[in-house]
């Protein structure tokens, strides 16, 4: 083991670029996820604004149809896979160990690997912009439009491989968090005492584990079609292109819940803090989450009511879809029950939570409309649908995630975000959001289809579209207010202290930001809201934590190069496949080089000790 020489020596410095590249600390990984997701949010936002400008009036010529098609494809793909999912990941990376009283996740290096795979997948897909051939077939990528015959450009290839790489990241993270939540809970933290966010993370981890293999298979078949010339989706060769739609939505519908459940968890944990009372109907909220996840696997074909599946299939999937309204309603009612009788403090996190509850309710109601098949034949693929899922994913997920950022930012940074700017941020976003997306219901009902880069003046959609474009600029203003708030706070924000909101869960019992080992002494949890218990206003762990020797007695795993190297190797295998299409020998060289590198990294990872023997005193 003493053979580590020179640059291969394990990095030990707690600061500097290498400390971030090799970190296995769940908090740092959470921050990396969060920052990357915010950057991608900015990019996807720019794409959205360009589309809104193009649609602001009929016969606009700001962008060409090819560019427009690339914009909506990348906007959708980015928002789903590279903004909302990683923002959820940022929270569960940062918070889960803190919430369950653990020092890190079960597999810290695997956690780092997840992040690097996510980052490289993101970079790989966006590299398509460099070759001026971003994917342009929609984030749903319906066959046979994705075949070589109809999409000869390499955009689809970037998209397929990028998603495959992102899928590895998600699967690794999901297994990691299932094991972490099941095994690493502090003594006394029974399942039914866990914060709801921990529950929702557990549920979406299972959703990821069951849903992602389906899209992986769908993508692999498409890869074969495009690289090897098979005919899995080729109607001319006798295949049914609907196979893709079934596979895609068997993944895609659970994916919707992967996107919304973290926000539901966040809001369920924020409401008690600002109403000063426990969550109303905790078991009902948890079981509703579980049943939503189960039912989410049985409704995929409601995305396909117009594909001619027949009355039986349409009826069954319509019925199943309506059933989901029941657990969803239970959640909304319990949130209302939590507010009822409280002492509601209108802090920014609560405002965003209220925004979440109200906007998500609207999105849920329009969702029930689509479940009604005859109505759906008029709404499918129109702006009505665009309105619906933005109410769910923006009004829902993003408002919930914003609430989470305002709520936990003090814990993560040690500084408060400004309340005044925060409220400005909220109202701009709330008003801008409704200006942009509510009229989409109307313009959809007036017959405006989705994914069109132009429309005729005779359609009478002009003024409504102009109004929506102005609304989108208000959203941009809200994002700027957010950025200003974050930057100001990091420079000169008010110190947060351990528990600025007077919250009840154990992540608030330790200092802000938390020490790298989280808890000096693993706390014992006696209820759902331990910090609100008599004599527990400060966690036992906390009391020891402050006047101690800076945690030298706690053994944390050392940083490691191998997650980064392994994920770079795997990502470049995908890159090599792209190069192979353009130059076979070069592609083969890249694939074999990085394949060997990945193998080597796996080997080194497997035999790497938790701590470098000559770095600290021997472990135990």
């Amino acid at each position, binding site marked *: 083991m003493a053979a580590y020489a020179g640059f291969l020596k394990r990095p030990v410095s707690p600061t500097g670029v290498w400390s971030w590249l090799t970190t296995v600390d769940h908090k740092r990984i959470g921050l990396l996820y969060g920052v990357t997701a915010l950057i991608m949010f900015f990019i996807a936002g720019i794409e959205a604004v360009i589309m809104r400008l193009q649609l602001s009036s009929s016969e606009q010529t700001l962008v060409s149809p090819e560019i427009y098609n690339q914009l909506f494809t990348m906007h959708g793909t980015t928002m789903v896979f590279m903004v909302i999912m990683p923002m959820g990941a940022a929270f569960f990376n940062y918070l889960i160990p803190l919430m369950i009283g653990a020092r890190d996740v079960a597999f810290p290096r695997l956690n780092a690997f997840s992040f690097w795979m996510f980052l490289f997948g993101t970079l790989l897909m966006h590299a398509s912009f460099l070759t001026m051939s971003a994917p342009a077939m*929609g984030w749903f990528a*319906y066959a046979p439009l994705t075949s070589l015959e109809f999409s000869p450009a390499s955009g689809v290839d970037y998209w397929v491989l990028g998603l495959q790489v992102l899928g590895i990241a998600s699967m690794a993270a999901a297994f990691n968090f299932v094991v972490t939540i099941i095994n690493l809970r502090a003594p006394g933290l029974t399942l039914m005492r866990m914060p709801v966010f921990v529950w929702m993370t557990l549920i979406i981890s299972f959703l990821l584990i069951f849903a992602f293999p389906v899209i992986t298979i769908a993508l692999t078949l498409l890869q074969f079609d495009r690289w090897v010339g098979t005919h899995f989706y080729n109607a001319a060769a006798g295949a049914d292109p609907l196979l893709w739609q079934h596979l895609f939505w068997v993944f895609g519908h659970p994916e919707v819940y992967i996107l919304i459940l973290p926000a539901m968890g966040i809001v369920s944990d924020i409401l008690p803090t600002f109403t000063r009372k426990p969550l*109303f109907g905790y078991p009902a909220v948890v079981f509703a989450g579980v049943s939503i996840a189960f039912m989410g696997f049985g409704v995929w074909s409601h995305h396909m009511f117009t594909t001619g599946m027949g009355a039986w299939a349409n009826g069954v999937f319509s019925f199943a879809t309506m059933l989901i309204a029941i657990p969803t309603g239970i959640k909304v009612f319990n949130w209302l029950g939590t507010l009822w009788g409280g*002492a509601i403090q*209108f802090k920014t996190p609560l405002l965003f939570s209220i925004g979440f509850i109200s906007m998500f309710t609207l999105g849920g109601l329009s969702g029930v409309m689509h479940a009604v098949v*005859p109505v759906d034949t008029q709404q*499918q*693929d129109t702006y009505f649908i665009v309105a619906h899922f933005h109410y769910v994913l923006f009004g829902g997920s993003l408002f919930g995630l914003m609430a989470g950022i305002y709520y936990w930012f003090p814990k993560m940074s040690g500084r408060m975000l400004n309340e005044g700017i925060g409220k400005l941020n909220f109202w701009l976003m709330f008003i801008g959001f409704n200006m942009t997306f509510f009229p989409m219901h109307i313009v959809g009902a007036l017959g405006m289809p989705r994914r069109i880069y132009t429309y005729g003046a005779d359609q009478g959609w002009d003024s409504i579209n102009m109004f929506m474009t102005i609304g989108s600029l208000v959203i941009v203003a809200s994002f700027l207010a957010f950025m200003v708030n974050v930057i100001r706070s990091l420079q000169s924000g008010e110190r947060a202290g351990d528990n600025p909101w007077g919250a009840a869960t154990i992540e608030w019992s330790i200092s802000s930001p938390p020490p790298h080992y989280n808890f000096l002494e693993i706390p014992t949890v006696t209820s759902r809201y331990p910090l609100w218990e008599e004599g527990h206003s400060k966690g036992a762990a906390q009391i020891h934590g402050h006047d101690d020797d800076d945690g030298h007695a706690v053994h944390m795993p050392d940083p490691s190069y191998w997650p980064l190297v392994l994920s770079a190797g795997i990502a470049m295998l995908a890159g090599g496949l792209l190069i192979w299409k353009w130059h076979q020998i070069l592609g083969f060289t890249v694939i074999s080089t990085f394949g060997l590198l990945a193998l080597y990294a796996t080997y080194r990872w497997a035999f790497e000790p938790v701590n470098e023997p000559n770095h600290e005193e021997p472990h135990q």
Partner: protein
Amino acid sequence: MGLSPSTGRKVQRNMTHRKFLRWPVMVGLLLLLVAVLSACTNPQTTFSPKSDTAQSIQTIYLLVIVMASIVMVGVFGVLGFALFRFRDRPGRVASQTHGNTKLEIIWTLLPIAILVIVGAPALIAVAGSAKAPDEDALHINVVGHQWWFEVQYPGMGPEDPNNPGERLPLITANEVHLPVGKQIYVTLESVDVIHSFWIPQLIGKTDMIPGTVNELQTFTPQEVGVFYGQCAEFCGTAHAQMRFRAVVESLGDFNEWAVALQTPPADPVSELAAAGQTLFLAKGCVACHTIYGMPGAAGKVGPDLTLLGDRRTIGAGIVDNTDEALQKWISNPQELKPGTLHMPSFGLLSNENPQHMSDAEIRAVSAFLRGMALE
């Protein structure tokens, strides 16, 4: 609400008064919504049904909107009330309730009740949509192409020369003619990618999938008029410009049109149009386009151009059918419809290219094509 008995009565009267007002207000708002959505300035609106099926879809649509609005008003009302009533102020202590089983049961049953109200008519409608077409329904087969619609009327065209006694389909493109009051049965196909066929005022959409023949729910147009249709499934570069028109006309007009479509065109009346006819053959247009009854013009790649002068639009519903627009189209289709497949930009080809057309030649071809019209 903690009111003294004397003011209590007043409040109660106010509340009944308000309750009394609520329904008319709601119905009024709904009617306003329908009025706005069905305004004639929106030819593609889903809220101005002009067929029996579209009408019955709208009935369910309105029911769903009403139910959703009731839930929305209820949830927002409770939310707003709670936020105001239970706001934090000095002396306010939150009640430490953890839940209430009775309430949980009530608000599990409540959505179920609402879903039954919405779901029952929805599922009945789904079952009804599977009904077989009437014996005398008019059958139309529409084929999706990137990015235009081929429209076939099976068994209504000229006699099949290879199969005496059998009739070929009557063929046109980007315009569906429908006799008013007759049940329409549409089958849908695609030759390339997935498209979707949709005439919002007449019928909801159904996808056109390669390798499959899909059936559109039958419908009976109830009003004469021209209605907008559009491809609703993303199908590539020019998806936004894959549109068509549905022309609902009297049975007499429909029959006249159907006969004209299978009558060889009369000789062009003007010299310009005659020159255009020659050019149409000489410049290779006929390799892709068919004109019924014109020798040599039997191409199958592009839309059938028979009786083009009678169509409302060109380029698959994207511009009105005028001399200027058609000339522009022949000269450079990419300008009107970026991404157009197969068709050369005849006006932009180099002079050496035998297919190149001068402005004068383009005018002639346009005059010839637009000259083919119903009397």
